[in-house]
């Protein structure tokens, strides 16, 4: 089975975020980047499916030169090949635009299965996978915890709200968006890192953005506080004493 994993590179979780002077986006100058966490789970699922059923795992990422570090890491973890879709203008493309350049790259590969994370940690629109499936004309299922190959198709476990799940059977080729927690993530081994250097990374250039976007991000800003937060300061012992006062006389739980 040929599995393609679409991953995104996003700012590190602990990154200090600063809005640019024009209020249009964040200052990317001193940010460090990492793989989008749900995409790491998608990659893990792909690697485990390959271990069980054989085949090939191809990892694909769109973005500027810096995303090749994320592709290298995926190769070190066990992906067989990588495709870098060179695009310095992702901010100028909306979800449909990004899904389109991913779909263009995928078409040439004709995989049996496409996996991606259920949403990104930065924009969090949670749609790229589903839109890609629609553009490619293949079935999809979202928020998937487990994948099993059954006959010529798949049986997947879909997570619903409030602790409910559902099995869904579907034909191949198909696209799944993967939820976190279905598997334990692996680390790249030294051997894996060495091997990655001999693996192929193909660079393709994204078609020029069409210019017509369906939605536009106009402004980013710090959220207004929903509550007036009283910040408690001091040494750990002083803070503990202040908190106990609040627990006794304000919250009244002790």
């Amino acid at each position, binding site marked *: 089975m040929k599995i393609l994993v679409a991953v995104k590179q996003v700012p590190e979780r602990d990154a200090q975020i600063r809005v640019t002077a024009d209020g249009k986006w964040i200052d990317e100058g001193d940010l460090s980047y990492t793989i989008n966490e749900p995409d790491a789970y998608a990659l893990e699922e792909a690697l485990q499916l390959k271990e069980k059923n054989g085949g090939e795992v191809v990892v694909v990422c769109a973005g500027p030169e810096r995303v090749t570090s994320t592709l290298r890491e995926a190769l070190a973890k066990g992906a067989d090949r990588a495709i870098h879709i060179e695009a310095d203008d992702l901010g100028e493309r909306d979800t449909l635009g990004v899904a389109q350049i991913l779909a263009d790259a995928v078409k040439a590969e004709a995989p049996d299965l496409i996996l991606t994370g259920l949403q990104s940690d930065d924009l969090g629109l949670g749609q790229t996978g589903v839109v890609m499936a629609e553009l490619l004309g293949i079935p*999809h299922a979202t928020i998937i915890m487990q994948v099993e190959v059954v006959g010529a198709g798949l049986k997947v476990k879909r997570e619903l709200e409030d602790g409910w*799940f559902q099995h869904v059977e579907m034909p191949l080729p198909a696209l799944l968006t993967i939820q976190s927690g279905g598997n334990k993530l692996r680390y790249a081994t030294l051997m894996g890192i060495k091997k990655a250097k001999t693996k192929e990374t193909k660079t393709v250039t994204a078609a020029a953005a069409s210019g017509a*976007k369906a*939605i*536009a991000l*106009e402004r980013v800003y*710090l959220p207004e506080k929903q509550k007036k937060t009283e910040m408690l300061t001091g040494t750990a012992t002083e803070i503990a004493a202040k*908190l106990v006062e609040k627990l006794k006389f304000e919250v009244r739980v002790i």
Partner: protein
Amino acid sequence: MSGVLVVMDQRGGVMNRMSFEALAAGKQLAAKLGAECSAAVLGESGGGGGVGNAALARMYSVEHALLKVYTADGYVGALEQLVKKVEPTHVLFPHTYQVRDFAPALATRFKQVLISDVIAVHDGPVFVRQLLQGKLNADYRQTGSGPCFVSVQAGSFRAEAESGEAAVEVFVPAIDAAQIRNKPGELFRESTQTVDLSAAPVIVSVGRGIGEESNIGIVQELADALGAELAASRPICDNGWLPMERQVGSSGQTVSPKLYLAVGISGAIQHLVGMKGSKAVIAINKDEHAPIFEVADYGVVGDLFEVVPALTKAVLAAKQ
């Protein structure tokens, strides 16, 4: 094109409560646009009755045997036809797991992009949504020319109790069984849930900031001192450090205790929707910009490995 269409979300005939919040958002948006608000329910038959909303221009009951159980193909096919018939300027959904499964594909059929997980609507209309796990807000505007698709975050709009009935119009879409590629199975739960966090008056909850599984003991000790239930954000349960049934958030339990004490939890949207109904929130986090502080009554910016043991000691002393 005119009017706002709210697509309500139901499963097995039970309306998702978030549907009524989406309806409130739809009416708010319609008022801003000076337009009518209608709603739609999909199902095998007889949907749309009993929703109780005389303020709606129309309630579309989208009926077909193939809509009895949810499939993305069935829903996208049916709603594509309904939207083409009704021609609304805006189509609103609650941001449920079911909507997340089909609404992006529906928007793609119209060459539009769903503006998902919206927390507020301003004049324009401008749709506000969160970025970077809630660290920033962003204003989005539709720039395409088709209908604008929007999904609404849980708890962001207040559902109103309405009386009276809207006029129900039955719409039967043309769907063919051959179009439906996925075969959905029955819904199930892993195991009977033994921990009911929703009944706990005090919850101490732990997140990523705890670093390692072996550190969870210090938070457990604080929970024990307070007579509280121990809960966690998703990453802790994903790692298997605590069982999934102790997870608070959109994929876990929704809680509203007297006190929610969040330790090392940054407060991603998916977590906040599960606990923002708490009466009092105390947050301990090393990052002063963590979104959890936006919903906290009392905040401590500091090292949880110092503050938590000190607090446990102080609570035990106060109880003597």
